[in-house]
């Protein structure tokens, strides 16, 4: 049975289990005259969960393990002699898999049955051509051993999948039957299924942790390699970022960190006031017509590809700032600048602030507003002094999200602020950010095992730690000023 149909069968069994469980709960309760502990649906749910969840977990594990096991077995069948020079066993295995996959089609087309294959009676000649006929392409002719391995592979896979079907369905049925038998009015079915669900909730929240672990793992080794080639003190404390193609680069993170902070700061300077004002206006001033139009419209800003913003910065905003502000004021004549990128990026992250804050502001109970109005507060006083403090945690979350997006942005920075790492206070100068350099060092022409490329990992890890510190700070602030209504 194919995986899809196993899943389908398990799901059908779960539905059947639900119905049976529910019915059994009702009938036992009627028969014994005892009240059910939980709603009958919960009894059904326990059966359904016991049918589906373990079986599907076993299925997933099996799917993961079976190829590894079979492969190990078949690998051993391939003698070294048939492995081409310069090739590898793993590549021969590719052929094995290909042939195994094609054999079904060959058998079907030639109207052969399994026996021929198992008994080695199948005509080995012209395997490649015959497989090609059924649409399976092989890179070259294969030796007999490989073909035999493929046959074994196919057999094992077949037995494996029969085994899998049997085991999975057996588990589903057994646990289903067990949980069905277990049903009696006293059974705390709601608690059972709620515990099940709570386990799922916990599992979901561990994904965030796993992601972090994954990120750290995928960065830390190459970062270590980098620091083996490049002194850490230089990386952390040098104020020069000047990678060279040939090596001998200066890779100080400070100008990049500065650029990151500066650009993000400008972007937040744009996005936070505008976004918050939008949120406030939409939540507390605007009519429902304007609100239902403006909110989704502004959300589109977050979905416009950043390249559009980048080009806008490069072609329109940059030259405008240069010609109308920077040059007349003698602040430089660069068309790419921190201000350009910051302004444009600020526009992009407006919806992060506005939409999320709007929801939170909207959720502050009306009684809070009434209380303030009745004291003769104006609407703006009410908002500033009562609503915003009450909505603070959510708003800080929204701002953090916006800041995060600003830190992670590349295209707008590249096109708006340039690629030059510089440590400067003048917002009309070109600067660049850590994220931009992670991308550019990682995708460049330089060889991989050089500090110039590996620095990307060190930059990533440093940024990770840095933002972690900022987030701890933010959490502390929220805790300190949080106001819980009711």
């Amino acid at each position, binding site marked *: 049975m194919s995986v899809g149909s196993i899943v389908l069968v398990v799901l059908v069994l779960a539905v059947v289990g639900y119905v049976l469980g529910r019915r059994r709960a009702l009938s036992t309760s009627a028969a014994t005259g005892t009240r059910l502990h939980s709603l009958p649906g919960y009894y059904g749910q326990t059966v359904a969960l016991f049918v589906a969840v373990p079986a599907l977990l076993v299925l997933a594990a099996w799917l993961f393990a079976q190829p590894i096991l079979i492969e190990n077995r078949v690998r051993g069948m391939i003698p070294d002699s048939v492995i081409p020079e310069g090739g590898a066993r793993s590549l021969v295995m590719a052929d094995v898999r290909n042939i195994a996959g094609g054999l079904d089609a060959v058998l079907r087309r030639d109207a052969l049955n399994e026996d021929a294959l198992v008994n080695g009676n199948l005509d080995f000649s012209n395997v490649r051509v015959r497989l090609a006929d059924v649409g399976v392409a092989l890179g070259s002719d294969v030796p007999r051993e490989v073909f035999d391995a493929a046959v074994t592979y196919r057999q094992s896979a077949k037995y494996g999948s029969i085994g899998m079907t049997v085991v999975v369905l057996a588990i589903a049925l057994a646990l289903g039957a067990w949980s069905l038998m277990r049903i009696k009015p006293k059974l705390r079915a709601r608690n059972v299924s709620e515990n099940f669900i709570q386990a799922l909730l916990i599992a979901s929240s561990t994904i965030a942790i796993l992601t972090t672990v994954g990120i750290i793992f995928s960065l830390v080794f190459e970062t270590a390699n980098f620091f083996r080639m490049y002194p850490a003190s230089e990386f952390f404390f040098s104020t020069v970022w000047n990678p060279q193609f040939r090596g001998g680069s200066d890779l100080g993170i400070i100008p990049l960190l500065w650029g990151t902070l500066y650009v993000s700061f400008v972007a937040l300077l744009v996005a936070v006031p505008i976004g918050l004002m939008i949120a406030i206006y939409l939540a507390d001033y605007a009519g429902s017509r304007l609100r239902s139009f403006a909110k989704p419209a502004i959300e589109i800003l*977050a979905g416009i590809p950043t390249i559009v913003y980048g080009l806008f910065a490069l072609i329109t905003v940059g030259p405008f700032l240069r010609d109308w502000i920077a040059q007349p004021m003698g602040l430089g004549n660069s068309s790419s600048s921190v201000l350009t990128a910051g302004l444009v990026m600020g526009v992009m992250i407006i919806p992060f602030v506005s939409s999320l804050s709007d929801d939170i502001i909207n959720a502050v109970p009306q009684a809070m507003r009434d209380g303030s109005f009745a004291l003769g507060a104006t609407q703006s006083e009410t908002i500033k002094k009562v609503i915003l403090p009450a909505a603070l945690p959510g708003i800080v979350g929204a701002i953090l999200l916006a800041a995060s997006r600003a830190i992670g942005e590349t295209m707008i920075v590249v096109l708006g602020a340039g690629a030059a790492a510089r440590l400067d206070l003048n917002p009309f100068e070109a600067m660049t950010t850590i994220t931009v350099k992670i991308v550019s060092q990682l995708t460049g022409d330089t060889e991989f095992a050089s500090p110039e490329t590996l620095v990307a990992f060190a930059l990533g890890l440093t940024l990770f730690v840095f933002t972690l510190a900022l987030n701890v700070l933010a*959490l502390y602030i929220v805790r300190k000023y949080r106001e819980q209504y009711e």
Partner: protein
Amino acid sequence: MTDAIAATQGKAALSGDARTRRRHAAERRFRMMGLLAVALGVLALVGLLFSILSSGLSSFRQTYVTMDIYLDPGILDKAGNRNPEDLAKVTTFGYAPLIKNSLAKAMNDKGFNSQLEAGPAAELVSAEAPAILRRYVLNNPDQIGETVEFNLLASGRIDGYYKGRVTMASAELDRNISPEQLQLADELKEAGILTTRFNWDFLTAPDASDTRPEAAGVGVAILGSAYMMLIVLALSLPIGVAASIYLEEFAPQNWFTDLIEVNIANLAAVPSIVFGILGLAAFINFAGLPQSAPIVGGLVLALMTLPTIIIATRAALKAVPPSIRSAALGVGASKMQAIFHHVVPLAMPGILTGTIIGLAQALGETAPLLLIGMVAFVRDYPAAPPEGFFDPASALPVQVYNWTQRGDPAFVERASGAIIVLLVFLLLMNLIAIILRRRFERRW
């Protein structure tokens, strides 16, 4: 005494004292600022949309050449036996002369006064044309020797001429097109051989190489993006909401949950390319999933979207007044029931906002796809799901990114066209969420 109060205060009520006037001025300012902010936001959107639409709408129209082509057996089937294997030996290079000859014949028949040689004249037709002919001939070997009417793409420069991108003046300088060729195009147009019409192919065709901007479409990219978004939505929404519910409602308040909280906020700040690094390491190198496949892209984007949804959901859950929970618990609802029956529906607007914004971000992201091999030139359509999740595919933002890097200016229009498609895709995707959100919104 009361009269005195009434008199003075009556006046006060009308005009207010200086302080009240100041407060009112502040109120008006605040309100104006709000309106201004909304106007700014909408204006920015309108401006950006205008620039996208004005440069991209033209990609939905395309110039075609409709012409009769003689399928010359002397070229296509030298052996004369119509053997498919022999026919397949003739490559697309072999088909180019058919077009050249037929066009020359047409020009001759209709008495055009263009002095253009057959070679430069044939450059009016897209480099895609021979491939179309070849496919047709291999499918219909019996048509060899016949004259068949074909509907072929005009080359990018000619197409640009009718969209205003190429002018006689620019053609003077352009080494890829000459004014004479443009004049010939005008004559062909007059004769009805050249027509400009709506371009479905742009939505369905796969990407094309740099030499054929006119043939490039977003078909594969739409599929790739759709597959990825399916995966993102199916994973990040339930997992994100589940995780938020656990953290906000069930988890004990201790250093560990603080750690998770900070950690999630921090994941949001991880640059998207780092998620690409993670995806490469975890899904391709460790789990052995294929390169360039929507399954990997979807998983990476789902991980990337998760923090956004979690942060939005948690904020929304936090905003639901505790009295609602007490009310439910008071009638004997379990915590789980109180949350799923009352709290989550009330937090729904925030959850949906998180989803909208998270998906918007995921849909437009290129950087993480770079590392898992999806920023690629892909011409074959992925199969239907679930197998198709494992086939190579491209994505809409990737197509935009790739096309903005190409040399031929015709791709600028295509890139903007792809952005339009992306935005429409985004709107369609979010429409349900937006409508739902409006239904769930309420004050209490």
